C-alpha cells in the first residue's frame, strides 16, 4: 500500500510535468497495484480515500491515453471509470475531471460515427436536460452532433478551436476528415460544377494543391482551363427488379395461403 502511495505521487508529478513516457510505465505498475488492493473494480468495502485515489489514477490514465493518441486504451479506462461515476456517485465527492472525460468519450463516439451509442450515453448522463447547455464539456459534443446531423458543417469547422479542454483537439483532425467526406458527397449530389476556388473554401482547404489531391481521391474531373470542378452526374440508376426476393416472397405467400385454406 505504501508502495502504491509513492507511485501515485510519482504519477501525479510526472502527469503535471506532462512526461508521457514515465506516466505510461507508472500507470501499468499502478494498475497491478490497484488490482492487488482490490480497487480496480472495487470489491468489499474499501475506504473512501482509497476509492478517490483509484478514481484519480484511472482518470489520469484516460487523459494520458488521449495524449498518447491511444483511443482503445481510453475506452478501457473509461469503462473502468464508469463504476466510480455511477455506482459510487452518491458516496464519492464529484471529481472535477469527470465531465471533461465524459465529454471526451462523447466526442470519441462521434468521430467513430457511433451515433446510436452517442445518444445512449448522452441519455444516461446524470444531468437534467437544461443543464447540458450550461456544461461546456458536454454541450460541445452535443452541439457538434446537432450541426453534423443538420448539415451546418461550417459551424463544426468554426467550433474546432473552441474546445473546452486541450484533449478535445486530438479528435478534431479525424472529425474534420469525416465532415470533409460528408461535404464531398453532398457536393457530388447537389452541384453540376463548382469553381475550384469555391470548392476549396467549401471543403475548408487552405490551398488549391490540397484540393486537387482530394479531388483526385474522389475521382472528380477538374477542368484547369476554366478552373472548375465538374461532378460526373450519375445517370438514372437503372431500376433493377429484385427478382429473387420477389420470387421468395411469392413462394412464402403461397405456402402460407395453402396452410390457411
Amino acid at each position, binding site marked *: 500500500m505504501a508502495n502504491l502511495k509513492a507511485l501515485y505521487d510519482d504519477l501525479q508529478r510526472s502527469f503535471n510535468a506532462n512526461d508521457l513516457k514515465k506516466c505510461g510505465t507508472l500507470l501499468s505498475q499502478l494498475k497491478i497495484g490497484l488490482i492487488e488492493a482490490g480497487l480496480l473494480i472495487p470489491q468489499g468495502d474499501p475506504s473512501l480515500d482509497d476509492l478517490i485515489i483509484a478514481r484519480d489514477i484511472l482518470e489520469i490514465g484516460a487523459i494520458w491515453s488521449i495524449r498518447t493518441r491511444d483511443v482503445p486504451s481510453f475506452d478501457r479506462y473509461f469503462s473502468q471509470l464508469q463504476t466510480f461515476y*455511477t455506482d459510487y456517485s452518491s458516496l464519492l465527492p464529484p471529481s472535477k475531471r469527470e465531465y471533461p472525460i465524459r465529454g471526451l468519450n462523447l466526442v470519441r463516439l462521434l468521430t467513430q460515427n457511433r*451515433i*446510436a451509442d452517442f*445518444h*445512449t*450515453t*448522452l*441519455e*444516461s*448522463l*446524470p444531468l*437534467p*436536460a*437544461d443543464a447540458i447547455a450550461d456544461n461546456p464539456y458536454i454541450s460541445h459534443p452535443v452541439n457538434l452532433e*446537432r450541426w453534423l*446531423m*443538420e*448539415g*451546418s*458543417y*461550417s*459551424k463544426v469547422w468554426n467550433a474546432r478551436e473552441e474546445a473546452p479542454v486541450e484533449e478535445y483537439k486530438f479528435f478534431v483532425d479525424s472529425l474534420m476528415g469525416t465532415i470533409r467526406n*460528408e*461535404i464531398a*458527397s*453532398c*457536393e*457530388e*449530389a*447537389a*452541384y*453540376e460544377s*463548382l*469553381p475550384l476556388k*469555391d470548392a476549396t473554401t*467549401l471543403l475548408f482547404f487552405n490551398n488549391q494543391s490540397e484540393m486537387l489531391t482530394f479531388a483526385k481521391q474522389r475521382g472528380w474531373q477538374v477542368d484547369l482551363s476554366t478552373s472548375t470542378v465538374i461532378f460526373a452526374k450519375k445517370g438514372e440508376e437503372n*431500376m433493377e*427488379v*429484385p427478382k429473387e*426476393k*420477389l420470387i421468395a*416472397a411469392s413462394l412464402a*405467400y403461397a405456402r*402460407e395461403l395453402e*396452410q*390457411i385454406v
Partner: protein
Amino acid sequence: MPDIDMKDKKEEEKKDKKPDEEDKDKEEPKKEPPTPLAEIKTNVVHIERAVSTIEPRFTHRVLRTLSALRKRIDDGVLRGAVEDVFPKDSQNKSSLLSWLGPAPPSQPQEMDVDSSASASASAPGTKPPTPTAEPVPEVDVYFRLLILHHILKQSNNGADKDKLSKAKELAQETVQKMHALNRRSMDPIAARFWFAVERTYELIGDLAEARPMFLSAQRTAALRHDDDTQASLINRLLRSYLAYSLYDQADKLVSKTTFPASAGNPQLARYHYYLGRIKAVQLNYSDAHTNLQQSIRRAPPAKVAPGFYQAVHKLFVVVELLMGDIPDRSIFRHPVLEKALIGYFEIVKAVRTGSLSQFQQTLSKHASLFQADKTHTLITRLRQNVIKTGIRRLSLSYSLISLKDICVKLHLDSEEDAEYIVGKAIRDGVIEGKLVHEKGWMECSGAGGTKRGYGPEVADVFGRRIGYCLELHNESVKAMRYPLNAHRKELADAAGAREREKELVKEIQEGDLDDEDGDF
C-alpha cells in the same frame, strides 16, 4: 409515471375474459357484487382448488379480481377473512394478523358482513364453517399480497414513511417465504407479488436497492421455467434501469433474456413500451415504432388505464415525428389524450410547417413537461426534421430560390450554413434539385422529377404488410382454445357422417337410376 395507472389494467383483463369463462363462475352474482369478505373467501376456495387440481386457471381468475378488490378492503375485512380462513392456533394466522393494525374493540359491521358472507361463501358448498386444517401456502401469500397492497394504500402514495417501512419489511419477509416454499402453483401469485414489491420500493424512492433482489429472483425464475414471474420480473428490472436512465444495461438485459411468449397482455404491453423506449434512444426508430404500436394494441382501453395510454402515445408521437411521419390528427382529439398531449401537438404543428422558430419556442415553453416525460432529448433531435420539412416545402413552392431567402425563411444563421444544409438535403433525397454556387441559388426540379411508380420499395412495404397479416392469422390460430376432449365428439360425428355419406351414396346410386329413368 406510466405504471401507476397500469395497475388498473388487470381490471380490464377481467372484463376481457369474462365471456369465455365457464358457467361455474356464475355463482358470483354480477348485479350486486359480493362483499369484500365474501369475495376473499371465494377466492381462497378457488386458490385451493387450483392447487389441488394443478390447474392455474383458477388462480388467474382470482388474481383478475385483485385490483377491484384492492380498492374495497380495509383492516376489518382483512382481519375477518384471516380469522375465518385460518385455524385458531395457526402460526401463519398470528403473523398475518400482526401486520394489520390493532383490532377494533367491537365490530358490529363485521357481523352483518359475516352473515351475508357465509351465505354466499357456502354456496359453492366446499367451505366448512370452521376451518381445522391449515390452508395451502398459496392462500397465505395471497393474503400477504392483499395486506401489502392495503398498507401501500394506507401510506397515501408514499406520504406515510412508517407504513412504507412496514410494507418493505412485509415484502422482504414474503419474498423469502416464497423462495423457501418453491411451489409451482404459487407462480401466478408470486408474479403479482413482485409488482407490489416494486411499488413499495419505488414509493420509498429506492428502486436501485431492490435491483439485486430482482436479478437473483429473475435468475431463479428462468431456471424454474416460471414464465409468469419471469415476465413480471423482466419488466420490473427494465423499469428500474430506465428510471435511472441506464439504457445500456437495459439493452443488455433485453438481449440476454427471452421474454416468455406466454406472458399476459399487461406484461407484454409494458415490455413493448420499455423496448420502444430503448430503441428510440438508440435511434432505431422503425423498431421503436413497431414496439410502441404493439404496446398500444396490447394496452387496456384508454378509459381503464389512462396514464399508460398517455405515456405510450407521447413517445409514439415523438417517434413518428423522428421517422419523418406526421402523426394522425385524431390522436390529439382523443378525449383521454387531448389534454396530456397538448405540448406534443404544438411540436407536431411546428414540425409540419417546418418553422424552426416556432419549434424552438414550443420546446422552451414545454421544456419542463418534456423533461418530466423523459422525451426532451428525443425532441431536440427533431430539429433536423424541422429543417428538412422546411426545405421540402420551399422546394415545392419555388422553382428557383436564392440561398439568402432560404436562410431568412428557415431562420438559419448564415448563407454558408444554408448552402451546406440544402446540399445535404439533396444528397439525402429529401428534395430534388441542384445548387448553383456562382449565382447563389437553388434550382428545384419540382414534383415532376420525383420518382413515381412501383419500385422495389413498394414491394417491400407490401411484403411487410402481408407478412404482418399472415403472422396475425397464425398467432390467432395458435391462440385458440379448444374444450377438452372435444375431438372425441368430433370423431363420433365423423363416424356418423361417414354413415350418412354411405347412405347418401346408396341413395344417389338408387336415385340416379330413377332419375335416368325419369329422363328417358
